[in-house]
């Protein structure tokens, strides 16, 4: 437990701790969680799931990587600016209900229709999905922003402490 904790503040320990099991597991599990999160997201309209849970899971997957590796590596791997992603997510979730008004219906009246696709057969297209995309992005990026901020803060206070000693 303690060694994992130290990972979060990567500069606290100068020699890199090599937690092979955790790193390897994280590598294998990460894509599974992401796929599961996307699956949860799309199944939301008919079975349990949805944008909020999906977004949280995506964030959790990245947190797992953060635990296994250190912040620098993660920042190199995922070079999004979470602040912009929050803005993007919010923009999507406000624009979808507005754009719906093109159909001549009041604000936030979702539209659904069905499409025939070659492999999948009849696929429902529901405008709520696009709204949920916004929720997904906002939730995931806000969570990650908070966590990565705290981790950075952590790393900074550690390096300051190291300088002093």
């Amino acid at each position, binding site marked *: *437990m303690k060694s994992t*904790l130290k990972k*979060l*503040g990567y500069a606290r320990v100068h020699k890199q701790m090599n937690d092979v099991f955790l790193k390897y597991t994280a590598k294998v599990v990460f894509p599974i969680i992401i796929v599961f999160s996307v699956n*949860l997201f799309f199944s*939301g*309209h*008919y*079975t*349990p*799931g*949805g*944008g909020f*849970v999906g977004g*949280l*899971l995506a*964030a*959790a997957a990245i947190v797992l990587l953060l*635990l296994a590796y250190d912040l620098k590596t993660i*920042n190199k791997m995922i070079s999004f600016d*979470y*602040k912009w992603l*929050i*803005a993007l*997510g*919010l923009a999507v*979730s*406000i624009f979808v*209900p507005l754009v719906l*008004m*093109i159909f*001549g*219906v*009041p*604000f*936030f009246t*979702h539209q*659904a229709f069905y499409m025939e696709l070659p492999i999948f057969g009849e696929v*429902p297209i*529901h405008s*709520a999905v696009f709204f*949920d995309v*916004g*929720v997904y992005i906002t*939730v995931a*990026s*806000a*969570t990650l*922003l*908070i*966590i990565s*901020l*705290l*981790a*950075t*803060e*952590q790393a*900074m*206070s*550690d390096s300051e402490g190291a300088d002093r000693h």
Partner: protein
Amino acid sequence: MTLIHFAILLPIIAAVFIGVLYRYYKKVHLGWFVLPVPVLIAAYLFTLIPTVSNNQVIFESLQFMPKIGMNFDIYIDGLSLLFAILISGIGALVVLYSIGYLSHQEKLGNFYVYLLIFMTAMLGVVLNDNVLMLYLFWELTSISSFLLIAFWFNRERSIYGAQKSMLITMFGGFLMLGGFLTLSLITDTFSIREMMDQMPAIQESPLAPFALILILFGAFTKSAQFPFYVWLPDAMEAPTPVSAYLHSATMVKAGLYLVSRFTPLFAFSELWVWTILLVGLVTLVWASFNAIKQDDLKAVLAFSTVSQLGLIMSLLGVGALGVHSGASEQVFTVAIVAAVFHLINHATFKGALFMIIGIVDHETGTRSLKRLGGLVTIMPISFTLTLITSLSMAGIPPFNGFLSKELFLEAMFAISEADFSVLADVSVLFPILAIVGSIFTLIYSVILIRGIFLGKVQPKTPKEPKEAPPLMLVPPIILSVLVVVFGLFPNLLSGTIIDPAAMGILNTAEPLNTEISHWHGWDSPALWATVSIVVIGTLLYLFRNTWMPVYRLGSKSLSINHFYDQGLIYSSLGAEKITDGYMSGYIRSYLVYIFSGFTVLAVITLINTDITFDWSTTSEINITEVAIMLIILASLVAILITASRMVAIIMFSVIGFSLSLLFVFFRAVDLALTQLAVEAIITSLFLLAFFQLPKRARHEERRRFKLNNMFISVAVGAISIIFGIAAYSNRLFDSISQFYIDNVYDLASGGNMVNVILVDFRGMDTLFETLVFGLAGLGIFILLRLRVNKKGENEYEEHA
């Protein structure tokens, strides 16, 4: 969605693309891409003129939130069309002008995005029939104006001016919303059209005066009337195209639009009539008097704008008097026609003047009257344009300002002779105030011409003066040509635009058939008033050195600006005092406040309602649930007694995970899933924050028993249980869940009820929750990254 809705929304849609375009393509000045937007809108609006001048109105409804009566209903009559044409027409000229004014180094993306947002907001204000939507767009104009004033946001004066304009106009706007809501209480509708149909109800209602006063606050703050005008001179920190557009031609006229729009509704009230008339006249005189002492050219124009707005406001007051008394006398119609005519004229000559001042500033590097002079030989075109527009502003023939000024004086003379019970004694003052205001207007118009272009050449301008590039000259030339054309052929306007607009204000269907003439006969008092204005004005100008010391009278601490500044300082001091009183900085204190408040309120509620407990409807408790509850209890106890924070954190997540297990047993799979994800993330957050916690001091390591805390926590727990059981036992109405079960497929074509509620039935809630979530993230970012550095300045730390 009709073409009109699209026309209103076009600028804001374009703003999105313009903003993106600017990031990747900077070779061509961004203004060229913006220019088509107002031009297209103006062209479209011009095609509506024939319809509207045939006394037809256009009404297009678009349902936005029909349940609360908030619909995007477009109503176009002469009045709204006039404003819309001004907005798009002047908008096009301003964009053209800004291409020359703003160089490539400026943040063009910001500028044009704000400007386009403003265009949509302003069109939305004047073309809307729904007061809620009107309010929405109204505040959007305030916000975009704020952003534009603060365009050069590293200047302290810009920020001061932006904040001032925002505080004052939003204060008024908020009161106006109160007025609208009061009106809708009386009439039970948000549509202005439908309110007009319920005139008797409004007249009888005791609430009407409140609605009226509140709406006037909105109009007076926006149109910079006395004593709220103080924001407008400070708003001149904005780039000059913005001053020409927002703070002279369009946004400040939104208040006039509001007054005109509500004149048929409120003219029955004497309060409405006299307030508008008096405030307008006082503003006219006070602002034109103050314009003379200004040294900054834009300040002169700002005060001049305020005074001209006062003039139009007072004319609307005279017109309202006509509706009020029911008299169909010519004078009231003349006043309304004069108001509309002067509105157009002011947009032309003041817009042009602002642009020329911008040119002078741009080419010499200064706007100070003291440092300018003798530019006539260097800038002959600008001089000619200034001459035309300033004389029009002063009311000198043959320009358009003369015609509307004559109508104004005529209206004021007529009203002083008419017999009215209230204010009959002071009505003789009206023409005197009008003449005094006009004299001051003449003086500062002359100061503008003389100060910049005539007299000795001032050698010490920061830049070598030269004539402006043609691109910057075209827009003021177009406006000046309009000044002359409208001056010579005023009846080009009267049938097509002025009459329909005036009829919109008067809310009549009778054609007015206005004829604006240059010559009113030898016996017209307005003629002699004009002559005396010119004579006295010239004399006062020539001997200005003898009476200018008047401005040094009066103490600074009595001024409205001083009052505003002190108010700002003391309100923030007061807020700080109150906040310091209860914000201890410890979460435990806040929890004590919250939970004690909760307990007190809950106990009061429990005492005042008779609650019964009915156990018959509760389901049976099975062994797994008991087991989970025992785990939760055990973890709770562990949190309380453990000395290690780590154990506390782990026990905390045990509670969370047990809770999600409980949800599974209750077949609430969605909840369980979400709870699991939340729990995983919260635990890692806790672990991250773990290092940030201060080391426990030695004396803190032993837990002391705190009686207060125990009392509060036991009370909160007990009350929650009581409420939970009571809520389940006392069903006052049927649960809404049946509705969702019945309709989840038909209305939302979904299968998972929980998620359908989240994204569809109660999608608005989700929208705002996401907003809260996103803002919380950004808030934490600001808290952690924005620090006050050693110099006391805010500093933004960027760490990769």
